[in-house]
């Protein structure tokens, strides 16, 4: 080797080392005390801001409907910020697109935690996606709050102490819907159509606790991303069911409904909450039909779908929560339809703000986890939260609803149950009113 080569290699290394030290970072601010002033008490928290992050399907198969959730949540945070924030801090909500693709979920979540240094993850959406980052978030000790999915897997306080669910889990939903089918369609033929992951299989677990196995004539699954569901629809049509129960995301509820139309069958449809927002469904049906060169009236096709909800009905203008969220919607995101997704995003944002409020003047990551475990959070929900030291599951139950003229009409009392073999019991708790200025804890 010549002296020149050695010199060249050496110079390259030196240059790289220089470049490296130049972009090396030095962070870490002092830890917060309990003095009077607001301090930078945790990563992502400054004297006047709290930065939180999320992965959301802004594009891809789950985007129709769900892509409204994060903008709606941000709108509610903007409303809080415009009215003084929580304990004097503005909430900065940074959500990145993962296209409902688990690999991208990992990438954007690591970016939010490692680069953007968020205080907490909030509302990370999806079962197949969020399961891939739960270990990372918990080993990094980042609070992983109010996951937008009803998988039972968020409720593991021992293994995942920083993860908290939000929705009633799909087993609870499956049990309530299963009981409805059992009571109203005894001895009739039932078919299932569900997503091929924990979302679908948890739902089916709940259904099977009530619907006798002999009544189920067909069980069909789909993988999100593959839009050809003709084989599954064909198999179900052949079994001639009286009822079809769906645990699907909105795009697949719509695809299945169009498939039924083509196959010439019209069983009663019972659809999980996550796949049944009337406004989203009717829009999807019309746009899918248009792509195929047909024209349908969305609202006619979804008339009579049985579903459930854990949030107040959108059509109930006298409800204080609906009035609050409508006001925020009209001011901050008037271009979005005021539908179930917007309601979901805002209600969830309210619960986060409430937890942040409860975590105290200078919140820490452990502090907000403790605040949630302490319980006692109330809000727009129809049933209480299950949050405690031993449970990180969200809402405890749902109320049945039937879609009539493009809106969900509540049926009977909200019903609560567990995800085991516990009974389903109606509750008659009087609903909580929204605070006068719409901000928790004031």
């Amino acid at each position, binding site marked *: *080797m010549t002296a020149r080569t050695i010199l060249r290699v050496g110079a390259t*290394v030196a240059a790289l080392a220089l470049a*490296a030290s130049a*972009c090396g970072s030095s962070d870490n601010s002092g830890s917060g005390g309990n003095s009077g002033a607001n301090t930078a008490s945790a990563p992502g928290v400054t004297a006047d801001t709290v930065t939180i992050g999320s992965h959301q399907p802004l*594009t891809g198969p789950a985007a129709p409907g769900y892509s409204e959730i994060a903008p709606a949540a941000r709108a509610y945070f903007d409303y809080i910020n415009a009215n003084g924030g929580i304990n004097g801090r503005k909430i900065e909500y940074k959500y990145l697109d993962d296209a409902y693709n*688990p*690999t991208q979920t990992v990438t954007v979540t690591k970016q939010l935690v*490692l680069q953007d240094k968020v205080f907490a993850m909030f509302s990370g959406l999806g079962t197949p996606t969020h*399961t891939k980052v739960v270990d990372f978030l918990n080993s990094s000790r980042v609070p992983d709050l109010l996951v937008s999915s009803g998988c039972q897997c968020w409720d593991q306080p021992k293994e995942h102490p920083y993860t908290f669910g939000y929705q009633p889990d799909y087993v609870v939903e499956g049990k309530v819907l299963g009981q409805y089918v059992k009571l109203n369609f005894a001895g009739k033929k039932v078919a299932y159509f569900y997503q091929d992951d924990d979302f679908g299989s948890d739902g089916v677990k709940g259904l099977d606790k009530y619907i006798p196995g002999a009544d189920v004539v067909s069980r069909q699954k789909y993988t999100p991303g593959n839009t050809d569901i003709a084989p599954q629809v064909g198999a179900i049509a052949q079994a001639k069911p009286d009822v079809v129960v769906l645990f699907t995301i909105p795009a697949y509820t719509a695809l299945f409904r169009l498939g039924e139309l083509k196959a010439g069958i019209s069983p009663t449809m019972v659809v999980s909450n996550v796949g049944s927002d009337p406004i989203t469904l009717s829009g999807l049906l019309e746009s899918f039909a248009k792509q195929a060169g047909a024209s349908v009236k969305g609202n006619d096709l979804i008339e009579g779908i049985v579903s459930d909800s854990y949030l107040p009905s959108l059509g109930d203008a006298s409800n204080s929560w609906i009035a609050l969220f409508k006001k925020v919607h009209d001011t901050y995101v008037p271009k979005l339809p005021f539908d179930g997704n917007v309601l979901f995003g805002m209600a969830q944002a309210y619960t986060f703000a409430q937890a942040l409020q409860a975590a105290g003047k200078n919140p820490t990551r452990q502090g907000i986890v403790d605040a949630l475990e302490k319980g006692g959070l109330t809000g727009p929900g129809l049933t209480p939260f299950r949050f405690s030291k031993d449970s990180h599951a969200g809402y405890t139950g749902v109320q049945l609803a039937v879609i009539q003229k493009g809106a969900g009409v509540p049926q009977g009392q909200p019903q609560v149950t567990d995800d085991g073999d516990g009974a389903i019991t109606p509750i008659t708790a009087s609903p909580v009113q929204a605070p006068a200025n719409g901000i928790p804890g004031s």
Partner: protein
Amino acid sequence: MAPEPDVIAPGRRVRWSTLRRHLAWTVAGALALYLLTISVDQYRNLQIATIAYTAIAAAGLTVLTGSSGQISLGQGAFMAVGAYTTALLLIHREDWPLGLVLILSVLATAAVGALVGAAAARLRGPYLAGATLAFAVGLPALADYRGLRDQLGGGNGLTVPTKPPPLRLGETFPLERWQAWICGLCLVITLLLLANLQSGRAGRHLRAVRDDEVAASLAGVSVARTQILAFVISAACAGLAGGLLAFVNSLAAPGAFQLTVSFQLLAVVVIGGLGSLAGAVYGSILLVLLPTWSADLAQRLDLSRNIYANLPLAIYGVVLVVVILGFPQGLQGALLRLVRLLRGPLRPPTITGR
């Protein structure tokens, strides 16, 4: 084995001085990576790890496409084989060391590469591209095949248990730096092996076959065997890259190996300079960093969501067009030209070495 023809006998083995030069670069590269990883934050370390495994896959492809002249659109599918092998081994054989798992993934992928290579050696030009394209489309879909879904996790993919850094590095040693070390080490070793291969006999065979198959076979080079070898080497690199991807991201899912990955790797190779190992590294740096830069830019400019989501691809496309029009030899070619310009008129090559 046919007797070695006289024409290329003088360089039977890698020349000692060449080997020493490669070793010097390897040590320098490892040292530079070490200094880089200890001075940047966790997210930068994660990006270094991502760049490293992308560069490994691209380096394998540049040997196949640049040196042996075979176009492959299936590099992403080979990565999938490596990733699923690593994922399954890490899940079912938790106590096996990572090194062993990665070596097994490389071997498994190389075996698949030999199969594909045997078929590919019969095909030329667009037919070869078409066949590898079909491979890239079909293979990741196997994860969702009825009989394999339970083992491979279907469209959701597999969650891989995280291998924490060894305790003797200290309890607070960041996981991302450990991942950057592993990936960086794999990269410099891969580059060393490939560089030696390219300047040795196998490399000459590859180039001979690329330039003129008839002449090469007249000179005693087995065309088919050489082409299969190229596929095996490139698949082995992809297998290692896939294994590292599974290790760094803690998952193996079909979504990570969509067709775009294979296209992007080919673009990386073209941008960097076809056949150039250094070019594969530059190209990978661009591929990984461009989306983050453009996303930051889009956010700072407060662009609307539709533009925001497509900006990285648009910028990448512009870079690709500019490089192909301006520097047909890729970034490495441009760099060499620049060096030559700075040095002034070309001097006759001197034979050095003591």
